[in-house]
């Protein structure tokens, strides 16, 4: 499982492959039917949903404005609760810190709860490289781990897999001693994963989870899950490591309540996820269970750079996935086409910001600007606006292709010279009419291959609007 993607493939080639993959298309087809409608229903049952969105946006903006203060407060509280906070400026440093904690604990088996930031820093590869066995315990993550793939969705990592592909994978990887039951229904498969994974929780030395929120006033980390694997990961191992981006911090427990109401509805169309788990420090005297040691790795990895620039709003993201569930491009090509672990609209903004725009040149452009993502975003991130801004960054850095730049120059010149513009329009009409011949629509136009590759172009009438309008008005004048 590699956090990166081979540099030989591009967004376009991956998208082409995705469009031609019938199993992927079948899996993606479930998206629209299910989640969009379910979310709409559950949101409609909460009249104050819009108010909560506005409030959540305000809280996030306030936190981002005072991020240093809240992070320091959070660190002090974690320390007071007996935990240890580590600061990682980039992915490499984060991996080193985690590796050292695991080595010091003499870890052989490490369980992992679902965490996008863990994928972002490549923690799994680092630990496996050091000879440890890493077990993904979220069902979706477990499936993509067995398949040696990246997650294709930030909430449903194995969204791209069909049921049959999953049962095949389990049949291949699980011995009869581990599981010998049926694989007919979803419940069978969930039961199988549960049975196989249960043993791993008991033998795990270190459990690594992410965090939906870090609470500054209590030093708690919070995860919202549905399978209960996060609880087992964080409480049964000897050592619990929390990995989180620095923007995960919220001031108070009340804020957790606010975001929790938005997150479940936006992510999985639930009023609340099955588990909302608070971890505060290691096991204390008198506690029945809990880890012996509690570490938090706070990860920057480009975030403070984003904080300082014109894309700060992206740091409000709570990783609910609603934007990709509602994105027609994501729905057409799936998550792997985006090339990294953050797909869909949020990924199209975040990946260029975190990894560099040169590496992700297609992403800001592979968007129709239809605005549905921004409409459903629970923290009101203006995703299409940010994507347009990224296009501006590309244009200013001359990363736009020479042919596009040339076309834009011509367009800019025409749009500011009305006479030339009208002349060019008339000329275009004439040329297109010549190419079109007797048909009403044109199947092939030189230099318009992108358009005519999939659709006809209507043949323009002989006279433009302005020619007809002038004529009409002149006739009216005469009649008067």
């Amino acid at each position: 499982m590699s956090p990166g993607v081979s540099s030989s493939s591009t967004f376009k080639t991956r998208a082409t492959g995705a469009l031609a993959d019938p199993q992927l298309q079948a899996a993606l087809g479930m998206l629209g039917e299910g989640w969009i409608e379910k979310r709409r229903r559950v949101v409609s049952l909460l009249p104050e949903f819009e108010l909560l969105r506005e409030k959540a946006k305000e809280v996030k903006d306030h936190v981002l404005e005072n991020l240093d203060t809240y992070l320091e407060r959070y660190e002090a509280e974690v320390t007071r609760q007996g935990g240890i906070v580590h600061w990682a400026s980039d992915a490499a440093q984060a991996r080193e810190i985690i590796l050292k904690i695991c080595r010091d604990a003499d870890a052989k088996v490490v369980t992992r709860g679902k965490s996008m930031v863990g994928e972002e820093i490549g923690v799994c590869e680092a630990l496996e490289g050091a000879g440890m066995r890493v077990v993904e315990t979220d069902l979706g993550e477990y499936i993509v781990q067995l398949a040696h793939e990246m997650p294709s969705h930030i909430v449903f990592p194995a969204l791209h897999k069909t049921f049959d592909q999953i049962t095949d994978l389990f049949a291949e990887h699980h011995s009869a001693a581990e599981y010998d039951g049926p694989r007919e229904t979803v419940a069978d498969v969930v039961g199988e994963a549960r049975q196989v994974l249960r043993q791993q929780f008991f033998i795990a030395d270190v459990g690594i989870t992410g965090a939906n929120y870090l609470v500054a006033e209590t030093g708690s980390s919070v995860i919202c899950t549905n399978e209960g694997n996060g609880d087992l990961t964080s409480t049964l191992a000897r050592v619990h490591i929390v990995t989180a981006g620095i923007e995960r911090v919220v001031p108070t427990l009340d804020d957790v309540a606010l975001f929790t109401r938005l997150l479940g509805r936006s992510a999985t169309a639930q009023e609340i996820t099955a588990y909302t788990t608070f971890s505060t420090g290691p096991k204390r005297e008198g506690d029945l269970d809990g880890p012996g040691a509690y570490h938090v790795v706070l990860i920057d990895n480009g975030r403070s750079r984003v904080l300082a620039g014109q894309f700060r709003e992206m740091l409000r993201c709570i990783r609910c996935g609603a934007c990709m569930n509602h994105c027609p491009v994501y729905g057409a090509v799936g998550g792997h086409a985006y090339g990294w672990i953050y797909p869909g609209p949020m990924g199209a903004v975040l990946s260029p910001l975190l990894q560099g725009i040169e590496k992700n040149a297609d992403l800001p452009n592979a968007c129709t600007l239809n605005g549905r993502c921004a409409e459903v975003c629970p923290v009101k991130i203006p995703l299409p606006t940010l994507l347009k801004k990224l296009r501006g960054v590309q244009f200013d850095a001359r990363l736009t292709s020479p042919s596009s730049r040339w076309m834009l120059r011509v367009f800019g010149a025409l749009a500011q010279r009305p006479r030339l513009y009208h002349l060019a329009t008339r000329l275009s009409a004439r040329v297109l009419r010549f190419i079109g011949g007797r048909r009403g629509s044109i199947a092939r136009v030189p230099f318009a291959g992108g358009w005519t590759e999939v659709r006809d172009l209507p043949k323009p009438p002989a006279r433009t609007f302005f020619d007809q309008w002038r004529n009409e008005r002149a006739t009216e004048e005469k009649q008067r």
Partner: protein
Amino acid sequence: MERAQQAAARRDGIRAPRVGLFVTCLANLFRPSAALAAARLLEEAGCSVEAPQAQTCCGQPALNSGDFNDARQIARRTLEIFEGFDYVVAPSGSCVRTLRHDYPDLLADDPVWLPRAQQFAARAFELTSFLHDVLAWQPPRVAVPACTLTYHDTCSGLRGLGIQAQPRALLANIEGVTVKEMKDTDVCCGFGGTFCVKYPEISRKIVDDKIGNIQGSGATVLAGGDLGCLMNIGGRLKRRDVDVKVYHIAEILTGMTVEPLGEEPS
């Protein structure tokens, strides 16, 4: 002004609102009949309509390609051209969204131009919302050949300007038209300006889904308020030889007297 006041003012013979028609470059070249129909509707609704010759394009090709300097210059000159009018109206949600929302954004740091852009934004309207919301006008009863029509909500109009009920309300007076909603009518058609040219394969998948929904509705006519989307869907319908006739909403409201988009008059 309130809708009721507007209507009363017209009845009392107060000066007709002066409307500058923003033609849009797609209508000018590919579908003059849509803009001519828009002008006719505006005049029937009691406006005096002019189409200033100096206008060109709203600047979206530059804006959506990251060329903000050119977009800003185009915004300034468009503002100047239309400044004398009571209203600026276009047969397009997409262009009006740019006039109304993008121009103030583009000129946000310009203390001279920002107020002008904001005043301009307040006077810029998409055709159906202007007729319905501002003028409180219903088109006169007109009969068209009987057809089942489905309306595609174009994204910029729907999400950028709140246009959804207006075109449907205006259609109520058109005899012969039965409106049948398609599934996912509020979902993008895959046009997206430069998107459909840069990523034709993805666009094809999205527009084919749209066509599936159009066919599923049983409609024989597709209408919408944005020529970009209509040219995308219509062009794909033609390519696949699917028999659905495509019209701009203004053309339906003026009696469907022209050939559908992409068909040569016989």
